[in-house]
């Protein structure tokens, strides 16, 4: 599904990713851990197409070169990024935004746009699954949402857009233990043999609830170690310093 080879990314002449290799197959869930400043969020941004990076190397998604693809086309092709810090968008109603966004993805896929009734039904189902109070969906997008509500809203967007590849950038940070379980369940119930995930986290805690197939350690712009879920536990005990 995703094939990254010798990916290098820099911003303002500062090199951040320095030759990253990663292959993710359909159905797999990969976790990336790493110290602050190792390039985790940059990887998420580069995958979703954020502007401002100088990029070289290979980055293929479903056989297609991602590098030249604009942000929205990546989203339309099935890449989703749950933001570490979801933005507050004043004046934009959350439900309207969700509908516009879903329909633009459906339109790009050549599917029929969803009418208001079917859309609301879908939102109701997905939001109750995540324990989201529907009232917040008639509010402005993320404005005045608590930290937990913002993160849950990201997962709700993921469930609604139904992407084939989701990147979760520190979705667990700022969540209490109950919210963490709900979010983890949200991810687990989305897992199929066709869908892949890249979970970026600082803590092993999230991986108690979401079982990764692979755990990678990212340090100074490169993956320096790959293992199975036990690697996360080892990291928790020893810290990043001891891994090399």
């Amino acid at each position: 599904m995703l094939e990254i080879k010798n990916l290098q990314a820099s911003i303002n002449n500062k090199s951040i990713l320095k030759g990253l290799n990663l292959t993710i197959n359909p159905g797999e869930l990969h976790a990336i851990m790493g110290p602050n400043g190792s390039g985790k969020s940059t990887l998420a941004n580069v995958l979703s197409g954020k502007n401002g990076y100088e990029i070289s190397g290979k980055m293929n998604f479903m056989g297609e070169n991602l590098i030249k693809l604009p942000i929205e086309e990546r989203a339309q092709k099935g890449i989703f990024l749950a933001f570490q810090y979801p933005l507050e968008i004043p004046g934009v109603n959350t439900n309207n935004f969700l509908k516009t966004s879903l329909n633009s993805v459906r339109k790009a896929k050549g599917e029929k746009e969803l009418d208001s009734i079917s859309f609301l039904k879908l939102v109701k189902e997905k939001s109750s699954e995540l324990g989201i109070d529907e009232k917040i969906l008639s509010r402005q997008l993320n404005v005045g949402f608590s930290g937990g509500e913002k993160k849950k809203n990201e997962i709700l967007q993921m469930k609604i857009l139904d992407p084939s590849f989701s990147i979760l950038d520190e979705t667990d940070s700022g969540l209490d233990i109950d919210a963490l379980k709900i979010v983890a369940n949200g991810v687990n119930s989305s897992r199929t043999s066709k869908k892949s995930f890249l979970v970026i986290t600082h803590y092993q805690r999230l991986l108690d609830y979401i079982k990764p197939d692979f755990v990678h350690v990212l340090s100074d712009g490169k993956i320096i170690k790959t293992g199975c879920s036990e690697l996360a536990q080892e990291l928790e005990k020893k810290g990043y310093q001891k891994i090399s």
Partner: protein
Amino acid sequence: MIQNFQVNSKQIDKIKEITSEEKDFRIKNLEVFKASGFPNKKLEDWKFSDFKQIIESNFKELDFEKVSSKLNKKDLLKDFEHNYIFLVNGNFHSSNFSFEEKNKIKIKSCNKNIDNKVSKNPLICLNNALAENGYFLEVEKNYKFKKILVIYNLFSKDIKNKILNNKNIIKLGENSELHVMEYTINESKFKFINNVYENIILAKNAKFKNLYMQNNKSDGFFHKFLKTELFYNSSYSSLIFSSGLKFNKLDIECDLIEDKCECNILSALFLNKNEHQEIKTNIKHLAPNCKSYQRIKKVLNSDSKGIYQGKIYVKDISQKTDAYQLSKALLLNDDAEFNSKPELEIYADDVKCSHGSTSGNIDEDSLYYLMSRGLSRKDSTKLLIKGFLNDVVEYIKNPKIKKFIENKLERQIHGY
């Protein structure tokens, strides 16, 4: 070239039914206008809108002759039930108050002058000299309008290089209520000037709401001086959505004359190529315990120019004044320009006055967030523009009128 803009005092002779005293006043005003000409940027109030220069570069000649006010067809809005007044080229044409008790409402053509002072604003002098055939509307005390009153402000096909001067008066009796939408329809493809002086007088406990909207883009140059006088516990609110005009200057003077008055001025504008729009306010807190609130939002595209000059004056006796003003501009283009000049003049010591002004571009991070959900850059920008203007639209309480305004805004932004 300027010679062509000379106006002859014979124009005043043509105005019917005026007293000799009134005629003298008109002649005096005309002399002042002739001496000063159109206002230019040397006048502080016209610092950002050099009207003289704008007129000279857009008109070769100006026609002060009266225009006909024939109306072939009345195209009424179907979006919501309403009463209406038709103005044709600024002149009062007809009215319909089918939803109201007609004996509670007075409406007639207005030729009267409102005050007898000679203004510092040359355009007001010109209006004082030449205005005729505006409307006079009076609502009796204790009468509350059941439906909105739409003032169709229609400019006909044949007006070209005309300068139209009108005076309007709206008077609300004690405890009365009126909600007005001024809806401008432009059929002329030519340039013209509409120079209006409007006086709104609100008696004790009266409530007046006004909303400005255009049907279409226009090559008209609009100047309106709005003098509102508020008496005990009355409230005035104005929502300005008049985008699409080549030039528009709305000069609002609001006198809070007695206790507990309230004045709200809000605006949400999307300005496009060749559009120049100024909102100038002068809120005068002349009595204690009054509130004023201003919220001006402008989105500026292409080479458009937006201006906000907002003044709050608090007289020494006006304790417990609560005054607020905020202007925000979103610039979509390097050629767009926004000028903001807040002025506070406070002589009382127990008051709350706050002001703020910001201008900036579309936030790239917000765009990234929306685009990462599959929206194109254009659609994301439009969503952010709508979001930016939305808090003003939220002030409209009637759902049908709100929907109507939202659709209009949607159409304005659609072209972006």
